[in-house]
């Protein structure tokens, strides 16, 4: 009887007319991405939460000088990067590491270059509050938002009450960020049988995924070892041979383990042609330099990735082919999608 009653109530709740509660949103992605996504149960995606998160992403009142928002460093046109080697904070001080691009974040379990944040909610705390980033404590931001017309209503619609808290700010931001799915590049169109790659793009693709097998006469750059399958992302940390004595310990600063020295999170290659400069310290101005690095400039050290021990020594044509494949990963609809754009520009 009680079960029946509860069930009826659940059904009634599900049938409430629109406007009575936040509307659940299910993300969608191509099958070849796989569903190894990390979506916290305590922050389900809703239309209202995502809409609020988008607004907060572009909200300059969240910074101590009212001049910066998340989008200052994460610009949609550059696949949510800013083209800088190191982004400047609200106080003008440069970040120690390059701004990471934002795409396909539900598949990322450990955020930042060193993986020190276990969720987007936790990650957002740092750029919002760190003195050399946006530099404003969350409770101060919450007080500020209460003074801005419209926000109490947006928070009520997203979370059920007018209460504006730091926790709700990061939850809404995380919801918006989870919707930033890039899956409409020419490479995706190829995977879906809608695009025929050029000869160079095809060769680059084969080179990207293959491992060199001298006995069988196969040339390969083995990029897929770390960059994975069609997502071109795996949740891994590797030392990719930038320095024999890494000045930045990277993952080691989180784990304290010697074997993690100089290890950094493997970056997604989605939209990689738009996110220069490259590496955690932005040392490479273009993709040609990145390919040259993997081909012939790997620096050896005790923690160098086992997959980078042998120099690739790519030919000039092979380098061109790899570059052609990497350019295939640019998703022009992602960087112009109005759902991800600045809502303040539409007023």
């Amino acid at each position: 009887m009680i079960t029946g009653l509860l069930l009826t109530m659940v059904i009634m709740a599900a049938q409430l007319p629109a406007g009575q509660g936040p509307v659940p949103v299910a993300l969608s992605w191509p099958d070849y991405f796989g569903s190894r996504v990390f979506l916290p149960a305590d922050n389900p995606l809703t239309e209202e939460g995502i809409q609020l998160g988008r607004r907060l992403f572009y909200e300059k009142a969240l910074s101590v000088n009212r001049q910066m928002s998340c989008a200052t460093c994460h610009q949609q046109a550059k696949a949510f990067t800013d083209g800088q080697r190191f982004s400047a904070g609200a106080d003008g001080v440069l970040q120690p590491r390059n701004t990471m691009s934002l795409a396909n974040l539900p598949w990322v379990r450990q955020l930042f270059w060193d993986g020190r944040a276990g969720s987007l909610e936790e990650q957002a705390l740092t750029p919002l509050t760190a003195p050399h980033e946006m530099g404003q404590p969350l409770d101060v931001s919450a007080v500020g938002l209460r003074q801005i017309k419209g926000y109490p209503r947006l928070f009520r619609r997203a979370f059920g009450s007018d209460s504006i808290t730091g926790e709700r700010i990061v939850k809404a931001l995380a919801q918006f960020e989870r919707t930033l799915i890039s899956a409409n590049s020419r490479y995706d169109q190829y995977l879906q049988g809608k695009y025929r790659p050029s000869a160079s793009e095809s060769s680059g693709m084969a080179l990207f995924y293959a491992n060199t097998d001298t006995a069988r006469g196969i040339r390969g750059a083995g990029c897929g070892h770390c960059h994975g399958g069609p997502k071109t992302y795996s949740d891994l940390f590797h030392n990719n041979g930038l320095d024999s004595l890494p000045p930045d310990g990277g993952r080691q600063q989180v784990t304290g383990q010697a074997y993690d020295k100089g290890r950094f999170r493997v970056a997604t290659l989605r939209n990689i042609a738009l996110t220069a400069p490259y590496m955690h310290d932005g040392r490479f101005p273009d993709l040609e330099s990145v390919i040259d690095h993997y081909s012939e400039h790997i620096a050896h050290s005790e923690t160098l990735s086992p997959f980078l021990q042998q120099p690739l020594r790519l030919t000039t044509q092979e380098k061109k082919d790899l570059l052609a494949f990497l350019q295939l990963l640019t998703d022009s609809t992602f960087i112009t999608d109005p759902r991800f754009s600045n809502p303040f520009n539409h007023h």
Partner: protein
Amino acid sequence: MIKNCLITLLLITGMTAMAQQQPVVKVSGEVARPLALYPETLRQMKRATVSLKDRDGNDHAYTGVPVQVILEQAGVTTGKTLRGENLSKYLLVRCADGYEVLFSLAELDSSFTDRVVILADESGGQPLPAGKGPFRLVVPGEKKPARSSFQVTEMIIRFAKD
């Protein structure tokens, strides 16, 4: 000012503590007793030596602790208790670089298989080389050594629930 100094001090202390971290394998999940296995812990446990054909195509002898011994110590369902719903349990092995491999518990249990999978900490009487150690899973008898994963940091036991 004093607050800043304190924060700096805490950061320095924290970083020093980080720099002194001992390598460890943590065993968690569906266990009666979560474990933290340090190098000296493994040396005191029952040990075994197994042979693995590595990527170089040659056989190498590895020594360490059978995974079954570790699971027994953690109170995981092994042997006679590995039946019924417990057969839908798995072991997820996680490595320092984020690499993960999975086994059903039955794959690791001596009541199901003669194969002995070990958590190795030495080869040829020497500690494992920097890129592979300090702890490597060694899974004999597989066509490729992809599950013989390097730098193991966690062993997690769970029910498959789908």
